[in-house]
């Protein structure tokens, strides 16, 4: 990989050869392209910016310009092997709907997001008394796209409350262009949460 992007290495390891993949918030399509070249996946993307869509077209990817909060209901139950929601869940308007729909349309759903309980963010707000701003959350409060910040514990609680089975957790921090898994006290020490949920049991009738 020429350029490190958050969680790409973990996702590439996870996705099996030839899978049908939907990347929600696919940006310029780099992850899908990587998955296509290394894993021969059949990939699709959803991206809100027309520039992102144009870059996907340039890469030969199929991409839909739209909000990921809308339009997922176009897809039939379990149309995908994997839905990927990488670093975008916290900026969706209705995360609950995105998660529910992801589980309906896919057998597996990957959610990775910045962990708002990471010690660096806890220290920042308690010492400075301001909204934290660092490599995890690089925006000023007034321009951040992150409107639904969450922690690893929050996501786990959510899954328990809604009865969504967690298949795998691989919370991690990025160290020298690698994702390093942190199994011990992840809610304090992992920069990013990484969950794989089982979407198999969920269809329009059961969700």
């Amino acid at each position, binding site marked *: 990989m020429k350029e490190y992007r958050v969680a790409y290495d973990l996702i590439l390891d996870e996705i099996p050869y030839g899978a049908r993949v939907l990347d929600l918030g696919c940006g310029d399509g780099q992850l899908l392209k990587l998955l296509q070249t290394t894993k021969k996946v059949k990939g699709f993307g959803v991206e809100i910016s*027309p520039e992102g869509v144009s870059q*996907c*077209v*340039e890469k030969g990817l199929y*991409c839909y310009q739209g909000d990921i909060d809308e339009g997922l209901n176009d897809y039939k139950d379990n149309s995908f092997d994997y839905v990927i929601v990488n670093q975008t869940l916290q900026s969706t308007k209705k995360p609950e709907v995105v998660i529910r729909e992801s589980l309906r349309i896919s057998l597996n759903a990957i959610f990775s997001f910045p962990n708002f309980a990471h010690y660096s963010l806890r220290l920042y707000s308690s010492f400075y008394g301001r909204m934290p701003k660092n490599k995890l959350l690089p925006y000023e409060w007034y321009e951040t796209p992150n409107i639904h910040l969450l922690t690893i514990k929050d996501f786990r609680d959510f899954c328990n409350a809604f009865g969504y089975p967690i298949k795998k957790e691989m919370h991690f921090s990025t160290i020298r262009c690698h994702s390093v898994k942190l199994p011990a006290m992840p809610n304090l020490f992992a920069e990013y949460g990484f969950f794989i949920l089982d979407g198999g049991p969920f269809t329009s009738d059961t969700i």
Partner: protein
Amino acid sequence: MKAEIIPENSAGIVTTNYYTFAEPPDELLLVSGKKLGPITLAYETYGTLNSDKSNAILILHALSGSAHAAGYHAKKDMYPGWWDNYVGPGKTFDTSHYFIICSNVIGGCSGSTGPSSINPETGKEYGLDFPIVTIQDMVNAQYHLIKFFGIQKLLSVVGGSMGGMQALQWSISYPDMVQSVVAIATAASLSAQGIAFNEVGRQAIMLDPNWNYGDYYNNENPKNGLSLARMIGHITYLSEKLMHEKFGRRLQHSDIFKFHMDLEFEVESYLHHKGNDFVQRFDANSYLYITKAIDYFDLKNDFNGDLANAFVNVNSNYLVISFSSDWLYPTSQSREIVRALRMNSKNVIFTEIQSDKGHDTFLLPHEQLEHNIANFLKREFEKVHRK
């Protein structure tokens, strides 16, 4: 500006060709149940068909278009073909790589069989005896042209507006002949508002006393009616913002109102100019028939009221594009097509392009539109050759 110096990236001097088929007793069976034949289709080609015939792109025009998409017919021509901005060497539809075919439609008046053609049964122009043709009929006629070229599979079928309707229909009627579709500013069916505007245009023609129930070919043409129809149509192709920027409330010859009924505002004279230009090159009956074909087009209706059914058996990859300021074929209608494709897990790209220029954006130079189409075609070509 005349084309005495033809630009380097022009398709150059081109000629319209004609292909005739469906000679009786093998007439084309139309959707209405009537038969039409013989049929002549006008077409132009640009570029060279490669040895395995895998680089052919079919371009389909909108309501008032013709087979003349690019280049010039003669050095003295004032204007090049209708999509010259996009078709030529090094352009979006790069004629140094692709073989481009632009086909006229049946019902038209630019060299193809239509109401102004001679009816072999009577020896006179068809007029209103010409059968109603649909978008599906237009496509079925073009199928014969593509077969004539010996092309098994088109790399892409492309069109804007009514051309987009034909492109969608192509992928549904002939799923194994279409590798990809570029559907621009189009719809699976025209809105009630669109039908309303078409009907006003048709009434303008039919209320012209010269129209004479379509029998006017040996007399004065209903040019006032046709011109008015074009003026109405033209308003729907532009956005409010574009009209404001182009004309505002400016007056033509003075800064003060003259308080009379003659043309005063610039926008008025622009519309008259558009109307007058149009009657020089278009047949009023063709306008009636083609707008009717657009109104009848309804993929949902064709497939038991469910648009998703229309795309169950398609084998093409789609690029669907809408324009933010297009109110005649709004983005919501493109999304409807895309939704139906996604429900069938088909390969589709959708993008809404920001533009102030309304429905007609696709005819004007637009960098993002050009890049998206060019990149899509390039990748589709690669996909064909990787197989």
